[in-house]
C-alpha cells in the first residue's frame, strides 16, 4: 500500500470521526436538540436515552479521529494493522451504542429513531469496512 493511499485512508477516517461526532448534534440531531426532554415527577428535565447515546458517540468519533491521525503520522504496516483492528472495534461500538448498549427512544416517530440511528449505523458500517481494508492491505 502506498504512503499516499495510507494517508488518504487516514484522512477518510478523520472525516468519518467528525461525521460520527456531528451527526447526533448537528447533522441529524437527537431529541434533546429538538427540545424534547424526559420530565421527572419533580419537574426536572433530563436527556432521554438518545441524548446519552449522542454523548457516547462524540467520544467514539474522537477515537476514530485519533486512529486516522495516527495513520497519517506513521503509516507503517504495523500501524495500519493496529488502526485497522481499532477501527473495526470502534465501528462496531458506533453501531452498538444506539442499538444495544444505550439505545434510542422507543417511539418510532422520534427524530433520533428516524434519522440519527440509521445515519450512525451506516457510518459504523463504513468505519468497519475501512478498518477491514486496512487489515487486508496491511503490507
Amino acid at each position, binding site marked *: 500500500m502506498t504512503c499516499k493511499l495510507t494517508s488518504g485512508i487516514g484522512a477518510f477516517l478523520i472525516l468519518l470521526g467528525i461525521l460520527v461526532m456531528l451527526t447526533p448534534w448537528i447533522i441529524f440531531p437527537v431529541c434533546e436538540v429538538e427540545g424534547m426532554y424526559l420530565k421527572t415527577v419533580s419537574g426536572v428535565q433530563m436527556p432521554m436515552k438518545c441524548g446519552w447515546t449522542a454523548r457516547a458517540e462524540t467520544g467514539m468519533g474522537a477515537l476514530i479521529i485519533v486512529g486516522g491521525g495516527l495513520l497519517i503520522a506513521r503509516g507503517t504496516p504495523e500501524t495500519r494493522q493496529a488502526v485497522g483492528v481499532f477501527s473495526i472495534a470502534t465501528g462496531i461500538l458506533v453501531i452498538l451504542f444506539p442499538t444495544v448498549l444505550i439505545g434510542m427512544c422507543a417511539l*418510532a416517530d422520534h427524530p433520533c429513531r428516524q434519522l440519527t440511528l440509521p445515519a450512525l449505523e*451506516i457510518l459504523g458500517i463504513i468505519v468497519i469496512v475501512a478498518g477491514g481494508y486496512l487489515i487486508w492491505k496491511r503490507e
Partner: protein
Amino acid sequence: MNSLFFRLIRSSLANRPYRNIATVFVFALIAATLFSTQFLMKGAEQSLDAGISRMGADILVVPEESSMAGQSIILTGQPTSFFFDNSGFESISRIPGVAKASSQVYIATLFASCCAAPVQMIAIDAKNDFTITPWLQENPGVKLGKDDIIIGSNVIQNVGKDLMFFGHNFHVVGILDRTGTGVDNSVFTRIEDAHVMAEESGTRAVRKLTIPYGMVSAVLVKVEPGSSPQVVAADIEEHVQGTKTILREGLLHAVHGQLVATLQLLYGSFLAVAIVSIPLLGTISAMVANERKEEVSIFRALGATRGFVVFLMLAETCALAIIGSIIGITTAAGVLVIYQDYITHSLNIPFVIPSGVAILADGTGALVLALGIAGIATLYPAYLTMRAEPYEVIRGGES
C-alpha cells in the same frame, strides 16, 4: 475447458478495472431502483394485510362523516373518537351475506409530554368480538377481564404492568405482534371498562371523556363464505343510512395514493437508467470488442468457435450484471431496512419488512432484468465479432 473459460472471464474483467466498475455501477443502479420499488409496495401491502387480518373483518362500517378517520385508525393509528347510533348495528347484522358483526368504540387518548405515544383505545364488545378473540384463543393463558388491556407492539409497556388512561389504571395482559399499521398504536379493552373509565374521568382526568351509551364508533363485519364483501358493503350503505364502508381494496387504494409520488419517482429513475444503459453498455461492449479484435481472432485461429467467443463476451457482461445487481440489491435492502421508521413516517403509510420469500422474489426479478439488459447490450458487439475474419484482423494488426 471450464476452468479456462472462467480464467478468461476473470482475467478479462481484472484487466479493465475502471470501465468494469462503471458498468457494475450502472447495473447496481438498475437493480437497486427496481428492487426498492417492489420492496416498498410489498412492504406496504403485507403490512396492510397483517393489519386487516388483525382486525379480523372483511368490512369496517363507520359513520359517513368519519370515513377518513376510520381509515386513519387502521393505516396510521392517528387517534380519533367518533360515534354513531348503535341501532345501525342491529340493522347491519340482518343484512344478507353478513356472517358476524361486532361493534367497537374508538377513544383518542390524551396527549401527554413528548414521550407519550398517541394511542388509540379500541373498546370491544366481548360477546360478539372477532378481533381479539382469535388472538386470545391462540394464547390460552391470557384472559381479557375487568380493567385488562391488550396492547399493540408500539405501545411501550410490559405484560403484567399497568397503563393509565383518563386517570383509570389498566392492566396489560398481552402484546400483539407487529403489523406496521395503526393497530400497533392501539390498546384493546372491553366496552364496559371504557364506560367506567369515562364516568371516572370527570374527577380523575384533566379532561372529561364522554362515551354516550347506545352509541358505537364502528361495526366490524365478517361476510359469509362465498359472499362478495363489495356487494355486502354496498347493501350496508344502502340499508343503513349515514354509514360508509371501508374495504381492503379501499385501504390499498389509499396507500397507493400515498405512495404514488415515490413510486413514480422510482419507476421513472429505473426507466431512465434502463433506457440510457442499454446503448451505453452496448457502446462499452462494442469498444471492448474492437479493442480485443486481435485477441478474439487469435482465439479463433487457435480453434475457438464463433459460438464460444460470443458466449465468452456474454458471460463477461453477465458476470458484471450479477456483481452489480447483488451490490445494488444488498445496498437498497440495507438502506430500506435501516430507514424503515423514516419511510413509514415521511410517506405516512403502513409498512413492514416484506417476507423473506417476497424479498427473494424481488431480488431475483431485478437480477433477471439486469441479465436481460446485459444480454441485449451484448448483441451488437457479438454480431461484430462473429462477422470478423480472424486472418484479416491479424494481418490488419501487423500493418
